[in-house]
């Protein structure tokens, strides 16, 4: 009781300081301050403080100027239900009293709230809408490209080329390809550009928990994961291009730490710009103590046994763009309720003891374009993916994947570790669930900003060196 009182006092003090220091006027900042004041929770206050920092506000406003809108401004213009506002708590008992909810909350999430058995969600709390954006480097490069009137050519084969025929992601991978995508092709390229949301990623560690239909933890993995964009790097050394990676767009590595029988299993996967060049995928297998080359053309296997996440699902959507195999269709735009990207300060989920159920989940309303990626081959793992692409930062806020029979197969909803001051983002947490087999993979990422500051060692992307990482 005493503790709670002290917490409230501390939160109140923080909010009061904020109120005095903050510059009024930015709706998302004001909304968050008000919300923090209302909840009295220190985590909300801390987030409000971070997004209200002058540095954050400046960057957000510059992005808003470039785009011509913010999420808040789009919401203001929309005709939304009056009840859909920060602080609204939705639970199993009252969900049916919000008939409009289905237009904003995908059925798969509503099912979780209504569920009394598998992967239950206790309650949803609507939090204020934020402003999300990418880094200053991307902002400035995109601004310049706009000014220069640069045009891109998305070819029917599946390459995104500059006017002089170069792969865009090799020479201007700091420029948002289509700020206002007109169709599915442009939207797909823009979300593909978002990539990891910055120059680098470093997860130390990346914990994956596999929960079964009885809400029991079936498996747990732990890994360290590193990823890098290879060209037009603007924030972390080496700036510009990574030496020796002329034809590759990005690459990453993963080193498994747990469980013991796969400890040391490590992989380096490099993605090339050309649509016809398969990924270079090398794996070090501890039981052989040898490196093997795996098929870069196979991204449909789970990343590890029992996981719902495949290589093509890594970071939400990592299937190589190829219009010969997929149809990219913008099927609409609107708003969706997804997890807020508050991971830099706090995880927007309160989970139960074993992490297989959710006691409380925060969701925020996001303006999105809806992209459908339809399989043309009739053989791909998913007949359709439906991605809700955020109109501010071009990353998906929510994704539904459908199996070959057309049934909803997997859902991806995540929370990024977004730093409002720099616009850089890593990941904090992902819920990836399968309503057919009633299994859920819960990922928690501990983003190591310190590692990014120090720089990612080149050895992390060389499988013959990575094998001795730990």
């Amino acid at each position, binding site marked *: 009781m005493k503790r709670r009182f002290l917490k409230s006092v501390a939160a109140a003090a923080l909010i009061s300081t904020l109120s005095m220091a903050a510059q009024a006027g930015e709706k998302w900042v004001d909304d968050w301050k008000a919300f923090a004041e209302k909840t009295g929770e220190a985590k909300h206050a801390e987030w409000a403080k971070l997004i209200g920092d002058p540095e954050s506000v400046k960057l957000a406003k510059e992005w808003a100027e470039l785009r011509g809108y913010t999420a808040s401004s789009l919401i203001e213009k929309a005709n939304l239900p009056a009840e859909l506002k920060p602080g609204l708590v939705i639970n199993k008992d009252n969900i049916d009293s919000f008939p409009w909810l289905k237009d904003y909350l995908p059925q798969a999430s509503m099912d979780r709230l209504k569920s009394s058995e598998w992967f239950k969600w206790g309650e949803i709390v609507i939090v204020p809408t934020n402003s999300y954006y990418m880094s200053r480097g991307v902002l400035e490069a995109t601004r310049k490209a706009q000014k220069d009137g640069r045009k891109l050519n998305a070819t029917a084969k599946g390459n995104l080329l500059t006017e002089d025929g170069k792969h865009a992601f090799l020479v201007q991978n700091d420029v948002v390809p289509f700020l206002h995508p007109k169709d599915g092709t442009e939207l797909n390229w823009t979300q593909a550009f978002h990539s990891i949301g910055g120059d680098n990623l470093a997860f130390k560690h990346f914990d994956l928990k596999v929960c*079964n239909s009885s809400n029991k*933890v*079936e*498996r*747990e993995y732990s890994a360290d994961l590193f990823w890098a964009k290879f060209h037009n790097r603007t924030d972390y050394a080496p700036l510009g291009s990574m*030496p*020796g990676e002329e034809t590759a767009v990005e690459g990453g590595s993963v080193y498994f*730490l*747990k*469980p*013991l*029988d796969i*400890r040391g299993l490590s992989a380096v996967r490099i993605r090339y710009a050309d649509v*016809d*060049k*398969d990924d270079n*995928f*090398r794996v070090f297998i*501890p*039981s*052989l*103590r*040898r490196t*093997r*080359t*795996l*098929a*870069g*053309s*196979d991204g*449909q*296997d*789970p990343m590890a*046994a*029992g996981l719902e996440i495949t290589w093509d699902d890594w970071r939400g959507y990592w299937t190589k763009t190829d219009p010969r195999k997929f149809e990219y269709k913008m099927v609409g735009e609107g708003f969706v309720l997804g997890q807020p990207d508050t991971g830099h300060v706090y995880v927007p989920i309160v989970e139960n003891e074993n992490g297989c159920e959710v006691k409380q989940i925060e969701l925020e309303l996001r303006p999105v374009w809806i992209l459908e990626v339809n399989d043309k*081959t009739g*053989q*791909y*793992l998913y007949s359709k993916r439906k991605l809700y692409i955020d109109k501010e930062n071009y990353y998906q806020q929510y994704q539904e994947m459908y*199996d*070959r*029979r057309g049934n909803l197969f997997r859902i991806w909803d995540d929370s990024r570790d977004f730093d409002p001051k720099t616009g850089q983002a890593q990941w904090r947490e992902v819920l990836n669930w399968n309503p057919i*087999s009633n*299994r859920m993979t819960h990922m928690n990422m501990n983003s190591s900003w310190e590692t990014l500051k*120090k720089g990612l*060692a*080149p*050895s992390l992307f*060389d499988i*013959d*060196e990575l094998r*001795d*990482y*730990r």
Partner: protein
Amino acid sequence: MKLTKLKAGLLGVTAMGICATSAMAAIEGENWWIGGRIKQGFSLAYDLENNGASKGPSNFLLEVRGNWRPTNSITIKADVWLRGDWYADIGSDIKQGGIQDFTSPGFVGQFGFNINGNGAGFPGEPFGSRPTANRFFSDFNDEMLRELSIQFKDPEGRFSLKVGKFQRGWGQSDGLRLLDVLNAQDLRERFVLRDAEDVRIPAWTAALNLNFRRMGLSKPFEAIGMKRTSLELIFMPEVRHSKFVINNPTSGATSGGIFGFPYPRLLDSKSGLGTAFFGTNLTDNAPDKFSFSDPNLAARLKFEAFGGDMTLNWLYGHQELPVTSLQGANLLLGTALNDERQATAVIPLTLDQGLGAAHAPGQYLDFLRSLVSAPGSVPFPLAPFGCTSPLVGAPNCSLNYNFNLDYDFRKKLVGGSFTREISELRLGPKNVSPVLRTEFSYEFDKPFNTSRVITPFGEEENGTTALVSAPSSSIVFRDQWSVMVGVDYFLWLPFLKNQRGSIFTSAQFFNIHTNNSDNLLYQAPYAAIDSRVNKNQQFATLLWNFALYKEKLFIEGLSVWDISFKGFTHRQRIDFNFFGDTFRPRLEWIHVSGKKEQGLLGFFKNSDIIEASLTVQF
């Protein structure tokens, strides 16, 4: 059946270990970690030469591993294990063949050799030994220390240096080793059918890896199409050879259980008779174990070319498997069973005397062969020593030849490998490309024992009797080149709409060509007829694995065909990962078939087992 106190005690120890381990968790900090595992298996051996089915090996393993990464540039690793086999204590006795049975017609039968029991006494089962040496592999440096290494990585990625005890796998072949020859193998527990990591014997090594690209030295290589070139230099002052046990009844009998190499049949190719009264004392002759002046040296140039990964490899090492070299003999008086402990006198013979005792006119081989053509025409050559001729009474003398198992020859090898995803070829419902793996090695002057010699007395000898010859004539050197072509493919079944994961398949074909291969023994002292090196020795392998029940039931099969000797082995594993991440129950089935003593697989044709094991890891 009542358990003896010892058996109950051993089972108790295992059970307690497993319980204790299951309650443990790995301990770790931000930059360090300590974990481990305990494994206990129990097996049923079947398809035995004489016994049908029996309790087989009960291998156990306790392992503790750890690492510390004090900075981004330094990694320190340690790995210690204790492994062994309760077979000597709780396994069944199994009878294999021993020395030639002089009571059998033509001496072609073999006395039994109990590989987990004492000899019952002549004439039934005169020999036996318990494989107690396998109970604990407890020599700290040789058997327990798996890794103790420190690696320094240049922050710029230009080089890395790893020093310490560790193993290094090279090449692209699985199962058979063309380039993966830096570390010798421990074949004592399950021949090569354990995981490669567990089979390799680590050695004190320094490995320097130079990244030419990051060192700014890549231009000349890139000019000829070699990209991302790096060079690995290996300095290995600790020279190890492969470990195995021959189930040898002679004198201080040794047993390695059912995965010990069976005692060879000793037959005279001319008369067709068994070389009764012959035994062998075997002594390892290995190079200095730790030598800075005579180390193993190796280098590997790695680069990208032709859309794939290539390596060029070089090794100046030592042979990991032996040739036999005759050193002399011991004449045993008072025993016909080659047991020096039972002899009334042991008369050492020099190499020349030993050769004379076998090959000189009127000596052993002449006597033996006369038994077919004209029994009694050649007097029993040991009669002057007071030995009774087997033609007239109970024999009471025997002869043990002293062989070195000689590892002191250099292994001089060059080779290369190439791996590439064949993106041009898209197969199956998911349009997945196969991955091509190829490997090539050329070994210079590989030593072989020859199966044909001209004795100092001008006679030509073939097979077993050719082993009894001076090393200068019994050991010859040949060049050998080997090629492997393999394909890995992730198989998605077209008729399975919602297949969760692919079936990994990996097929390999090997051809091992030996120049001037006539009259070479495949592996001395196995000298039975047809146990020869083929000019082209061919193998094929198939590995596949897939997972069922949400990847909890993991099934893996590995088949190896010895095409040339018509041998076959299959290892089937089923992992039951239903019990969280701590418990790993496994069923493993090993089946081997082949012709006795012919080729690698023929040695283990009676070593089939089904093992149930439980690993508890933390």
